[in-house]
């Protein structure tokens, strides 16, 4: 039995129980107001502190991983994104890294034709990761409607797009009364399931996975699942929810009656994620921009990178070297700074 994913599962389960019992006990204020505020504070402060702590450590050397031809002669074409020599190139490199997971994609590029099947699992990591992150982003953006009144037009456009790719429900009877189906929520759920299964099934990935790798996946699963549950099955009172969320952002918190327990579970898991975020690997969100192998130019011989803590070090000077080998150098016909005679004189003087 793998204690690591069991542990993560257990923690998420406890979180679920806590919020469920909390909601049942009528602790609306605690779960609807106090904890969300606390979570946001922890998130913002923690995130800032982490980024500041990274930024506090200098970058003593420019160590980009050069992934293509560097800038050379005009007649040699340079890989301007993979080995950038301009800040614009670095920007594009990071942009592709962040938006398309370019390095991860490199995984899948090389393929021999004769071999098929299992090898293609490689591309699924990239596809899965991409699906997960974009679905998450879409869901996140959609949720801003809960915090803004009126809902901005761009969010409405996004919602339309998201539901535009709607999954047609086959039974008209069931579809009746259903709100538009947002694809992103289901993609998120599927991607999370895939990423979690991948971790459990592929031995080498399972071997290196920690509880802190399973935990966020299970947590996000819980969030997505409870969200979908609320939207399509238990039907929370949206108006009441929006009243609560608007109250939160306008600092006039109220706890309206009649919000179902599922909402509090959902909210509590979100709060946990927020509070956990800055202290976990999820900080790769911020870290990727600070990675010195990706965010520096490759033209390190053309421009000097300054190390703020560069300190003088003892070196074995030429003078010391010549002092030791002068006889042999002269004998071998190598030029010396001080001829043998002078050196002998000096030695004699020193003795006196």
């Amino acid at each position, binding site marked *: 039995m793998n204690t690591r994913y069991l542990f993560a599962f257990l923690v998420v389960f406890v979180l679920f129980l806590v919020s469920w019992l909390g909601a049942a006990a009528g602790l609306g204020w605690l779960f609807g107001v106090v904890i969300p505020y606390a979570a946001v504070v922890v998130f913002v402060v923690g995130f800032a502190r982490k980024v500041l702590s990274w930024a506090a450590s200098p970058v003593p050397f420019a160590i980009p991983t050069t992934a293509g031809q560097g800038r050379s002669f005009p007649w040699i074409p340079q890989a301007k994104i993979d080995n950038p020599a301009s800040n614009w190139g670095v920007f594009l490199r990071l942009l592709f890294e962040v938006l398309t997971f370019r390095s991860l994609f490199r995984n899948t590029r090389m393929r021999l034709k004769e071999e098929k099947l299992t090898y293609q699992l490689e591309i699924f990591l990239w596809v899965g990761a991409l699906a997960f992150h974009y679905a998450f982003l879409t869901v996140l953006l959609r949720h801003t409607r809960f915090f803004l009144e009126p809902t901005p037009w761009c969010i409405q456009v996004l919602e339309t797009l998201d539901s535009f790719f709607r999954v047609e429900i086959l039974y008209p009877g069931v579809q009746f009364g259903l709100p538009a189906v947002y694809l992103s929520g289901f993609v998120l759920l599927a991607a999370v399931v895939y990423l979690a299964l991948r971790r459990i099934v592929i031995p*080498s990935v399972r071997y290196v996975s920690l509880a802190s790798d399973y935990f966020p996946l299970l947590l996000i699963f819980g969030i997505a699942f409870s969200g979908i549950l609320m939207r399509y099955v238990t039907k929370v009172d949206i108006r009441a929810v929006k009243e609560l969320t608007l109250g939160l952002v306008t600092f006039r918190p109220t706890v309206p009656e009649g919000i179902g327990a599922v909402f509090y579970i959902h909210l509590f898991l979100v709060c946990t994620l927020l509070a956990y975020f800055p202290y976990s690997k999820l900080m790769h969100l911020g870290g990727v921009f600070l990675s010195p192998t990706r965010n520096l130019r490759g033209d390190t011989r053309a421009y000097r990178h300054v190390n703020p803590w560069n300190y003088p070090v003892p070196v074995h000077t030429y003078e010391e070297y010549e002092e030791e080998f002068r006889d042999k150098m002269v004998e071998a016909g190598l030029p010396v700074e001080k001829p043998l005679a002078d050196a002998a004189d000096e030695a004699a003087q020193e003795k006196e």
Partner: protein
Amino acid sequence: MGEALFARIAKERAPLLSLWFDAALEGYARDTASFLKDRRDPFANPVGHHTRRGLERLFDELVGAMDMEAVTQALDPILRIRAVQHLTPARAVEFLFRFKRILSERFGAAPRSAEAAGLLFELHERIDRMVLAAFDVYMACREQVMELKANEMRQRTFRAFQRAGLVRPEHEKAPEADGE
């Protein structure tokens, strides 16, 4: 009935090879084995590739001509890899014995007739010959590793000095083996 056993084995080439390949990977950690098995690109996974190819050729010899030169050639890449890995000599050649078990699990351990017994004996004897050849290959590889260990420095550095006449060790007047 004569060729029956060999023909039956040959007919199940793919599944038997797959089992044999799995057995050959048992000396590795589980996560490593899954990488060796799943990653099909011969350049990204040379160990898996050479092991697989070697077993295919061994299989064909086993049910075919049993040409010992071909057998040695098929064994070479597999054992050459194992000779520099963490496997003990016994572990390194174990995969050949394992094929006996795979066959008996697949076709039954007890032969039903004297003729079948003869064939089974012949088959086992062939595998044994492979094992013996494997020992030879393994040892030759180990010896080569030891030789590289002992001589590399001498060959690369001292030879250059020697050519330049910068070292003339008194106790070593033997002519250079590979000098010009």
